[in-house]
């Protein structure tokens, strides 16, 4: 129950501030306005259009990032030569702030879906990649030796020892990557979009509709929280065997 205390208190403060007139509606919409706006958006179908568009971009961008990170992370984690060749470049790219990519991506890919999905993929890629590489590097040599003693082939060693040993780190990376994907989505949609939750934000700003802005923020919070919880559930299911303090 403890987890609901702070959200409920915040909600109460929000309600009190707007109902008493201390905060004007053009600065902060009341809970009632926001609920009505959600109902309106749902009825007109715009809610599902924007929510759907954002979820689709995150899902696609994340899937691409996951795939690329699996390939590059395995190569770099599995070979010192590949690490020397690729890792410094990737680390340099990683240290570029996310928004710095936007002009280039817009020039190259225009303002269409590809640009947004690319930006989401860039954001999600690095946490997964970094976690996977450190996961592979961190595999207990002693467990690998057990596989060697039993004469496991290279393929069997990868499938039966390295993959399961790396999975916990990979899942942590994927969880952080998914959070990053939502972060980068906002950046992408704020700049150029005709739908999506980020579009709802800019639209609300341009029309001075704080209720619309708040709906978008609430939906972002909800989506972020749900994807985080989903990933944690997956971690618990798949790597519950880890002997560490749950975070």
């Amino acid at each position, binding site marked *: 129950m403890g987890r609901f205390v702070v959200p409920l208190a915040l909600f109460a403060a929000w309600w009190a501030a707007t109902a008493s007139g201390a905060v004007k509606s053009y600065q902060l919409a009341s809970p009632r306005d926001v609920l009505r706006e959600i109902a309106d958006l749902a009825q007109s179908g715009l809610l599902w259009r924007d929510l759907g568009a954002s979820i689709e971009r995150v899902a696609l961008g994340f899937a691409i990032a996951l795939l690329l990170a699996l390939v590059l992370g395995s190569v770099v984690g599995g070979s010192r030569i590949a690490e020397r060749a690729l890792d410094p470049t990737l680390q340099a790219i990683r240290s570029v702030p996310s928004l710095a990519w936007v002009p280039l991506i817009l020039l190259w890919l225009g303002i269409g879906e590809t640009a947004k999905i690319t930006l989401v993929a860039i954001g999600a890629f690095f946490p997964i990649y970094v976690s996977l590489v450190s996961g592979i590097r961190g595999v207990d040599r*002693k467990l690998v030796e057990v596989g060697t*003693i039993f004469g496991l082939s290279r393929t069997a060693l990868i499938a*039966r020892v390295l993959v399961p040993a790396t999975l916990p780190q990979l899942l942590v990376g994927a969880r952080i990557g998914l959070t990053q994907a939502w972060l980068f989505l906002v950046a992408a949609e704020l700049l150029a979009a005709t739908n999506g939750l980020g579009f709802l934000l800019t639209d609300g700003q341009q029309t001075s509709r704080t209720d619309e802005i708040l709906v978008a923020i609430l939906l972002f919070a909800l989506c972020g929280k749900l994807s985080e919880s989903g990933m944690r559930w997956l971690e618990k299911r798949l790597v519950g*065997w880890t002997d560490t303090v749950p975070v």
Partner: protein
Amino acid sequence: MTALRSPGGDNAARIRGLRKAFGTHLVFDGLDLDVARGERVAILGASGCGKSTLLRCVAGLERSDAGTIATTGEIGVVFQEPRLFPWLDVERNVAFPARSDAERSRVHNVLALVGLAHAAQRLPKQLSGGMAQRAALARALVRDPALLLLDEPFAALDALRRIELRAAVREILEFTRASAVLVTHDVDDALALADRVLVLAGTPAEIVFHGVVGEDATRAAILDALGVADVRRAPGPRSVRHGASYTT
């Protein structure tokens, strides 16, 4: 040149002219050792004398620089740490090396043999140190090895678990009739489990003591060999203190 591997004939293991160096540090230079079928040999020596390296060479985890290592049949290895796969329960850990239905059908037998039948579904994180080491022992037995290599298998256990597991290993060795090479720094382990005791010392390491348990490999003789070995390794006041630790 790496050591040739060929059937060991009447021996479970036959080592000839083993040479192994780590960089400029020569661990062995022409070591010979035979382990007869069904024989249990304990190798004692101070830390870093090369006894674990010898075991790792026999297990195929280290490449020797020269010489031959010939073994007959399957080899099972138990390390100082259990080295269980944390994502597999006890039963699946023990079944890990099984390649055939015949070997898979042994899983329950070896689990019962080490006294872990009741814990088959537990994950390694749910095991005590002694239980984890029993599971590791069961895993080493699943392929019915002709030779069991035990690298300080009791070192991480408290005194009571140590005695318990030692008794269990003794029973298992008698039951399976497997040959065994036990690497340890504990004279009691050696006397309790081995038919024959060797003491390794020097750089490169040589066998400085060789005796049969119940005959010339008495506690006093082994301790003496270990003490002498220590003085030889590093003369000076420090080695006297170090050597004294064996008498405690």
